[in-house]
């Protein structure tokens, strides 16, 4: 994952989690922070139709020694694309 000066992050693997369960598996993803709002754009690899409808969901992206995590505030889930508004990062 890389962080740019414009507060844009991106990676190639991540998940939306409901607790410990994977609700949505993501491939390419990017996050940008604009006027205090974090917005996630991602390519969807796999969706668990039940878990994806549960709340709260957490966006988790692997990093060395752990995960970056953001709470998902709103979600638009398409067949291949996902757009989500995220809360402040938790870890």
């Amino acid at each position: 994952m890389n962080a740019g000066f414009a507060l844009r992050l991106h990676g190639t693997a991540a998940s939306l989690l409901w607790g410990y369960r994977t609700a949505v598996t993501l491939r390419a993803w990017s996050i940008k922070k604009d006027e205090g709002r974090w917005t996630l754009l991602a390519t969807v690899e796999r969706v668990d139709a039940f878990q994806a409808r549960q709340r709260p969901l957490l966006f988790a992206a692997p990093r060395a020694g752990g995960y970056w995590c953001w709470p998902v505030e709103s979600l638009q889930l398409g067949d291949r694309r996902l757009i989500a508004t995220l809360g402040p990062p938790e870890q």
Partner: protein
Amino acid sequence: MDSRFPRPETVTLTISGGDTLTVKKRLTAGEQRKSFERTYVAGIDGALKVNPLQIGLATITAFLVDWSLCGDDGARVVIRGEPLEVVEAALDALDPESFAEIKHAIEVHERAMLEARAQEKKLRGGGNGSAPISASPSGSDGGSTGSGS
């Protein structure tokens, strides 16, 4: 009363040396089925047979979410969110006593959860005058629909 849809809740089990295991409080039907699947092997004739040696490993991987175990270098051996193969490899790399201790701790937890669920079902099924399925509100002789007793 717990929902029929188990929430992804965890409990922490403490084992020797102060190490901890984070395990699923309850399995879903899907998690249980996948656990059962991992115990089956195909015979020469293609028929599926249970491999008893896999039962313990399948039970552990069904429940285990995380742990505090560290390697020789003092760094935690990461299993949370890792693919099943990685978790199984880490478990297989343990000394046999540690593997047995983890297996025992999880089996005790599983039994306790099953007993708690059984108690809950008893409470759900009686005592308040409204059985989950009943033939008639006025039926006082225990009559019911469907098969079985």
